[in-house]
């Protein structure tokens, strides 16, 4: 009896101790919020600019929720480095609104729970987020981001993220890219009415959105789609390839990860199924050209993407790639570098416009962002952010692997709007 009492008392004491610690911890962090990066919402700074969270007298703080230790670590590292390079360049140039840019990076390792905690920690101190990796992460934070009016550029392109005031999908969505892919196949690879195309796709937002686009476009072109749903853990696609060859497919679309693309193309080539394969942008990474599937990839694969190849001749891209290589000589230049840098530049343009309009509060930044009808960073196509329900761009590039080029990829077709895209968007 005594022991139980005693034990209970200890538990109580431990609980009380934990509570004190917790209070102390939160107390500390709220104190930190009042520091340089904090500042009250809609309060004015000395220079007359309206400020808000993340805006100090001499600094603008941006946040990044990234993956530096999980499955997208390579991508995360590229984006973080590219955006830091952008911040350094802007700061060397005198900053924005006479303030230095600081990017606060939080790693969530592709764990939604960690990401939610990281967001709660980060949100009071930053004005906007030029990087959030992971569709499930964005999905979990949707309501918080909307409530906080935190302008956010997710590194995810599912159409389900459209229609949110504070969330901006940059470039095209997966469905629009797949419509362009089907158009590319019928236009250049001789697919005709009655043919079957395969579509191998991840379960989840990414795959299902891509499938929506391919199914619609195929119907318009009189093609049949044979779908094969896979998971991120499927890396040997032999069985999928046999199923597709049994269907007699004339081409294959794939909306999965780089590992799946390599397996699909490698196996198809070895089985004599030498048909054109078109991948969504996340399905390709430069590292693939070091796998045994490299020759088959070079011969059969194309990639549809809202962004041009990093080896593209666009002056903006060349300049960016040259400085990135100088700054990070040991890091590969992949599409993450380009999309990260592009997102940072677009964010910079929003901040500049908001400053000129007299305020840097979240509301001001969001308003400035939605007023951009023709945002062009010189890193690809111009984007229109004024309609929240529409993708910011509907123009798609067609790329192709090339082991000799920077980033192991080259442009095949310049940005163009595939026929039918407007009709598709108005019917959605």
């Amino acid at each position, binding site marked *: 009896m005594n022991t139980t009492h005693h034990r209970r008392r200890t538990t109580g004491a431990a609980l009380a101790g934990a509570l004190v610690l917790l209070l102390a911890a939160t107390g500390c962090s709220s104190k930190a919020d009042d520091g340089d990066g904090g500042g009250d919402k809609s309060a004015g700074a000395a220079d007359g600019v309206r400020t808000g969270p993340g805006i100090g007298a001499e600094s603008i703080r941006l946040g990044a929720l990234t993956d530096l230790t999980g499955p997208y670590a390579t991508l995360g590292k590229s984006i973080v480095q590219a955006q830091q390079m952008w911040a350094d360049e802007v700061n060397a140039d005198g900053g924005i609104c006479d303030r230095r840019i600081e990017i606060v990076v939080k790693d969530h390792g592709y764990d939604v729970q960690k990401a939610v905690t990281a967001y709660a920690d980060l949100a009071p101190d930053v004005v906007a987020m030029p990087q959030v990796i992971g569709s499930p992460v964005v999905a979990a934070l949707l309501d918080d981001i909307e409530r906080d009016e935190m302008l956010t550029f997710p590194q995810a392109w599912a159409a389900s993220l459209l229609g949110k005031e504070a969330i901006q999908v940059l470039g095209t969505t997966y469905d629009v890219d797949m419509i362009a892919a089907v158009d590319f196949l019928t236009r250049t690879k001789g697919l005709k009415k009655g043919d079957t195309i395969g579509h191998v796709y991840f379960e989840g937002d990414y795959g299902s959105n891509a499938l929506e686009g391919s199914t619609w476009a195929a119907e318009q072109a009189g093609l049949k789609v044979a779908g094969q749903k896979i998971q991120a853990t499927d890396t040997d696609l032999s069985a999928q390839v046999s199923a597709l060859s049994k269907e007699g497919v004339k081409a294959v679309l794939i909306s999965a990860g780089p590992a799946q693309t390599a397996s699909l193309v490698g196996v198809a080539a070895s*089985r004599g199924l030498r048909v054109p394969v078109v991948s969504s942008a996340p399905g390709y990474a430069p590292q693939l050209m070091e796998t045994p599937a490299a020759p088959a990839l070079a011969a059969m694969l194309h990639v549809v993407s809202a962004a041009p190849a990093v080896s593209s001749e666009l002056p903006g891209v060349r300049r960016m790639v040259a400085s990135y290589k100088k700054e990070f000589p040991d890091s590969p230049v992949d599409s993450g570098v380009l999309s990260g840098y592009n997102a940072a530049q677009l964010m910079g343009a929003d901040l500049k416009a908001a400053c000129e309009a007299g305020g840097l509060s979240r509301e001001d930044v969001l308003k400035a962002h939605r007023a951009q009808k023709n945002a062009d960073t010189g890193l690809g196509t111009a984007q229109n952010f004024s309609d929240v329900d529409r993708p910011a761009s509907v123009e798609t590039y067609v790329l192709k692997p090339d082991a000799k080029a920077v980033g192991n990829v080259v442009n095949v077709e310049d940005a163009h709007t595939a026929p039918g895209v407007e009709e598709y968007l108005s019917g959605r």
Partner: protein
Amino acid sequence: MTVFLDNVLGGIALGAVYALVALGFVVIFKASGVLNFAHGSLLLFGGYLTAVLHDDLGFAGALALAVLTTAALAGALDRFLLQRGGQDAHSAHVQTIVTIGIDIVLLTDLSRRIGGDLLSLGDPWGDAVTDLGPVTVADSRLAAIVVSAVVIGGVFALFRFTSWGLSLRAAAEDLEAASLMGVRLGRVRAGAWCLAGALAALAAVFLAAFPAPGLERSTGLIALNAFPAAILGGLASPTGALAGSLLIGLTEALVVGYQSELHVLGEGFGDVAPYAVMLLVLLVRPTGLFGAKGAARV
């Protein structure tokens, strides 16, 4: 018909690789009564070593070193961590939980090292294929079948004809009696763990070889499909593990290969199929295909 043969051959190759993993599960379970949840990480560990060493040592050298190191690691984990917990059925349960901890630690570190990379293991088969009549099959797959058959044959011989094998079987039958007969349980156990580690490292090569694009952080997860194989085979029966692995490999290949015909079952059924088969088998034979019949007294 070609498609069918394609799928069957693919299924046998997959089953052969699963058998290497499942045999590891079974050997460990027989010797120590522990279900090794860290098996996937051990496999990834072996694969990772082969991947980072093959540039310097060549494929054969790297593989040999990886197999030995993984065997040593598995043996050491058992000798210095698990065996401290004791040798009876109750502590085996505790040790099973401990393997989950080991798995988390190993996997976290390996994931950190591998990151988003696809590592090539430098195997000699590359993307070469062989035509067998109407069927085209990757050389790495044929190699998987041949190597697995030889290695598994060797392991069975080990069970049958060596004193270690005899001790292992004795220990699996009755720990106390075996111990009284002079079987050194600690050594037999550690030996079993070493063997399982070596088999896992070998399996990693074939899981990462050609039809798959290379070793990645999730390769260890694929190995968990060998888990239903071991269970439906009867968990304590090496022959059962072999049969179970082939059954699971074939099921997976056929279900995915005929996905469009099996549309009623919903898409992505291939991932569930191994477990569905396991449940079906256990419904009919609760102790598994080759499991020991429980002594039931009335």
